């Protein structure tokens, strides 16, 4: 596995045209730690080889004891001393190696997570909003942890699993090549079984296994998320059945996989088991001592070291699963790091004023589905623009282009004459703030939450914004007022959460404010507060609002009627009513229901 990733890097390194150096892959992140990594491997190998010393010592003592004549005491004790020293070296070196491995692992994981977080902080927000947060969090959390065996365990274990048997093998060959070959029989038997584990059928089963596992996770998610609906409609059986079908399929797949694999695995394990190896050595030994002139004392090294020859095959089987998991996890990490960050201008331009101008803007989430077609719109400073239209007409998409959640596929959006793409994102976000769906509070103090976009705001500014958003009194009723750490236990309702988000936006005090009424007006209190706040603090501010309430529409300076991705009517509310077109019709339908 390590080999593969090394090759991988060298391939990437040759592509000099790639603007981003290959720091995303495992080896890239390991490079700064190359020294520790080498030390770790060296220590592990030395330790493992030193572990052979006591076995050799026993063999040497045996030779002395079995030699004709009185035994050579000094030689025997020297051998014992060497053996004990070997044990000590092994203890020290492997412990040190394992310690370094785990500490290195911690550092590499931290580096990985920081890098992922930094990268996710630069990808387009639209990309983030189309992904499941849970899945991305899994990459940063679990997948990074899954890389652990790559660093802390496997390389050392794999290397020693090959070096130690190799050393033993050479030693045994020098003693008697015939017995060495006989000792290898169990290993060869086990290796002969390996192709049986790799047949296309087995590989297909492995893929089925992965698919079935994924289906379980999906159906569990559906089971849990839909449980309220399902229970409320007495259809609990349905998802329950889906879940059980998924788990049954998985169990079947697993059974098929295991049934195919288990006998081979069991046979392999048995062939590699110590009694079987000893049987081979002893049978060969008996024959060779009787007829082949093998000195009986030479049997000892084979009895002692022969067992170790099975290690590589065993290690391969043992570490293989972990390695595969780690490999897949690395793949997912690499996928995230491969997402292009939102292009940042090399030298950010400055906007002259903050008039927003959309020129022939087209946008589609993917090539087949165009959401916006040729939008031309100017948003003058100090005006409020209400965007109305049937659902699915592209309202949300249109406002999301303003804070660059996505870039238009054609056309341009300029702020004060400068294309949004030429502004640095810092300046962009200091100009535009927004209250959309999915308001999320941080597990931090109320003050920190409100001051998120303006970290250096003083207490007075924070409370003023909170008062404007009509949430100040509620905050004071919290156990520790503005210092209360917000979490699930705080018991803020949805409307209150939204008012904190609005305080956040008001404090940011950006020249452009974009909001979606549906989420901003959770209840009459919030609605009133926001209206009030927006009217009092409007000044020179540009407000763009996806409007649902008639009062918002009539208060607006400009109304834009969006239908099927194009602007069908555009003007002041009075003009549009006089035009007696689609907006007027829209308006009348709605007023029919309105008691006022």
């Amino acid at each position, binding site marked *: 596995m390590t080999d593969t990733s090394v090759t991988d890097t060298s391939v990437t390194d040759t592509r000099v045209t790639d603007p981003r150096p290959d720091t995303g892959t495992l080896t890239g992140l390991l490079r700064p730690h190359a020294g520790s990594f080498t030390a770790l491997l060296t220590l592990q190998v030395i330790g493992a080889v030193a572990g052979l010393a006591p076995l050799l010592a026993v063999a040497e003592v045996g030779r002395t004891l079995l030699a004709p004549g009185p035994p050579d005491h000094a030689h025997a004790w020297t051998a014992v001393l060497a*053996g004990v020293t070997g044990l000590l070296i092994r203890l020290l070196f492997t412990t040190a190696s394992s310690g370094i491995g785990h500490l290195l692992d911690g550092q590499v994981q931290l580096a990985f997570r920081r890098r992922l977080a930094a990268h996710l902080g630069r990808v387009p927000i639209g990309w983030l909003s189309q992904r499941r947060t849970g899945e991305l969090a899994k990459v940063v959390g679990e997948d990074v942890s899954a890389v652990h065996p790559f660093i802390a365990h496997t390389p050392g274990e794999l290397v020693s699993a090959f070096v130690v048997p190799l050393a033993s093998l050479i030693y045994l060959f020098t003693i008697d090549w015939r017995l060495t070959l006989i000792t290898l029989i169990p290993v060869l038997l086990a290796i002969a079984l390996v192709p049986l584990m790799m047949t296309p059928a087995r590989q297909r089963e492995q893929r089925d296994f992965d698919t079935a596992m994924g289906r379980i996770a999906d159906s569990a998610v559906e089971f849990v998320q839909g449980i309220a609906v399902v*229970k409320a409609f007495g259809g609990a059986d349905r998802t329950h059945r889906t879940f059980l079908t998924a788990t049954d399929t998985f169990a079947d797949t697993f059974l098929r996989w295991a049934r195919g694999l288990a006998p081979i695995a069991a046979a392999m394990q048995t062939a590699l088991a110590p*009694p079987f190896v000893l049987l081979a050595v002893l049978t060969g030994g008996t024959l060779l001592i009787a007829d082949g002139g093998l000195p009986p004392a030479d049997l000892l090294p084979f009895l*002692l070291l022969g067992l170790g020859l099975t290690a590589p095959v065993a290690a391969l089987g043992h570490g293989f699963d972990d390695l595969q998991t780690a490999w897949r996890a690395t793949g997912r990490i690499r996928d995230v790091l491969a997402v292009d960050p939102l292009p940042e201008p090399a030298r950010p331009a400055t906007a002259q004023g903050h008039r927003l101008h959309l020129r022939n803007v087209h946008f589609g989430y993917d090539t087949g589905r165009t959401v916006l077609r040729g939008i031309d719109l100017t948003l003058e400073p100090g005006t409020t623009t209400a965007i109305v239209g049937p659902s699915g007409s592209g309202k949300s998409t249109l406002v999301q282009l303003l804070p660059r959640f996505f870039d238009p596929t054609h056309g341009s959006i300029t702020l004060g004459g400068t294309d949004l793409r030429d502004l640095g994102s810092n300046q962009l976000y200091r100009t535009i703030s927004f209250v959309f769906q999915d308001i999320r509070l941080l597990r931090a103090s109320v003050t920190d939450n409100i001051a998120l976009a303006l970290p250096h705001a003083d207490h007075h500014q924070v409370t003023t914004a909170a008062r404007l958003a009509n949430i100040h009194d509620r905050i004071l009723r919290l156990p520790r007022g503005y210092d209360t750490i917000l979490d699930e236990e705080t018991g803020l309702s949805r409307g209150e959460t939204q008012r904190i988000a609005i305080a956040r936006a008001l404090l940011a005090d950006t020249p452009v404010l974009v909001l979606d009424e549906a989420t901003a007006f959770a209840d009459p209190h919030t609605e009133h507060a926001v209206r009030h706040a927006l009217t009092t603090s409007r000044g020179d501010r540009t407000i763009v609002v996806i409007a649902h309430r008639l009062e918002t529409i009539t208060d607006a300076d400009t109304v834009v009627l969006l239908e099927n991705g194009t602007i069908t009517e555009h003007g002041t509310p009075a003009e549009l009513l006089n035009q007696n077109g689609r907006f007027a019709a829209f308006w009348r339908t709605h007023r029919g229901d309105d008691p006022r």
Partner: protein
Amino acid sequence: MIRMLLRVLGHHYARPVRRTIALMTATAIAEGLSYALLVPMLHALLTGDTTAARPWLIAFATAVAAYAALRYAADLSGFRVGTTLLRGTYRRLGDHLARLPIGWYAPGRVGEVSLLASRGVLQAMSVLAHVLSPYIAAAVTPLTIVAVMLAYNPPLGLAALLAVPVVAAIQHWTGRATNAADTERHHRDQQATGRVIEYLQTQPVLRAGGRTTERFTLLDDSLRELQHASRRSTLSALPGVLGLTLTVQAILTALLILATHLALGATIGPAEALTLLVLATRCADPLLSLGDIGGQLRGARAELTKLDTLLRTPPLPEPPDPIEPTRHDLEFDSVTFRHGDHTVIDHLTLTLPEGHRLAVVGPSGAGKTTLLHLLARFHDVNTGAIRIGGTDVRAIDTQALMARIAIVFQDVYLFDATIEDNIRLGRPAATTAEVRAAATAARLDEVIERLPDGWATPVGEGGTLLSGGERQRVSIARALLKDAPIVLLDEVTSALDPANEAAVHQGIERLMAGRTVVMVAHRLRTVRNADHIAFLDGGRVAEEGTHDELLRRGGRYAAYWNLSMTPAAPE
């Protein structure tokens, strides 16, 4: 551990599990005993007497054959039992999940349950297939070898025996020491995941404030804490591993010195000494692997504990003798409901005659939605009672209760199936004509016309292909099709654009006709026509009456009404 495993599996699996464990133990003993035959055999071989060695060789071969057969059987049995258990555990998990109160399903549960259901169960079950066998072998084989040594040479055997309590003590102690550190690590892990999610979800605001990762200290702190915790967890396991290695090596050293000393002094024969040393080295490897296997076992145990906790969460109690209510008037009788320390509903009493409409209004956080949830028994009340037609909801069979109630939620969850399937969920036995009629009544036909495959269009997971208002209409069609006598509406029109709002209103009106209705609403104009209005604050009824009565009273409802009717006046 085994006890917990059996509890999670259910006791009818006890026998195959015990049989597998017995088989694994027998295999380990057979391995140890087969080594006993090495003593006479090596004695013969090392002195060059191959004729004497032959019968022993045959005996050893027989023993190895027996061992191999046992081992093969034990491995297969582990696989087979593990797989059977996998299916059984999934069934138990699925059945249990279906019986848990809906209130248990907090937002954080999605990740937890899906993780547990996919990898957790597998890891817990792998104990039998992969971990238990090496663990038993690593512990039992050396013990058997020590017994063999004791039989052949008591002094050397005794020396080896000394290691047994030390190794056992170290294993026990390591388990404890690492447990605490592992728990902390797990805790930090969850904390860090929470921070990552926050960080991702607040990206827009964070970017606005110029907070890149380096400056978003909340995330970086928790990532660093995670690293520290995992370092601590590594360090806490280190003394155990070191202690184990040290003990095993010390004993090996002692035996080496002792055997050399005895053999050089001719107290024991050289062949005997050497054989015992070979046996001693045979003990060392499995014992050293105990540390690793112990770690794997602890990992599986952690998953097993989670499964056990979940399976032991009490499900919603079902009445032993369910009663079917015959009327559908509603009664909240001094109901109190607490969530943790927080009292959400506080001695609330309300009644509603059959066929009437009750509107629940009040500031956010007043407990309005909870009231609906309690009525549908998402949770059980702490004190007091909720009655339908005079029958306590807890005395009604859950299926029967749900059959009487149609709920339209604020957030509509749709399954990744066609629109038709999603509507049909309301009454699976409905005819196609009935489904279409419900859809038309909910003004869904105009939405369906626009969709590429009409009725057969899949709506995507969670209904993501439809807008909020469109999802709402599906939910109303569902409720219409269900045709239940009690209708619960949770802020259904709070987040709609005018077109959808008009459509949803029409659907709702049809849904409410002739039924007992409880609705939570912010848009007060939907409230005005209710027969009865309750103004909730802090989990209590602050005011109640009809719209006109409450307006005349000039209290909090009146203030609320006036506020919502006032356009924001420029000041």
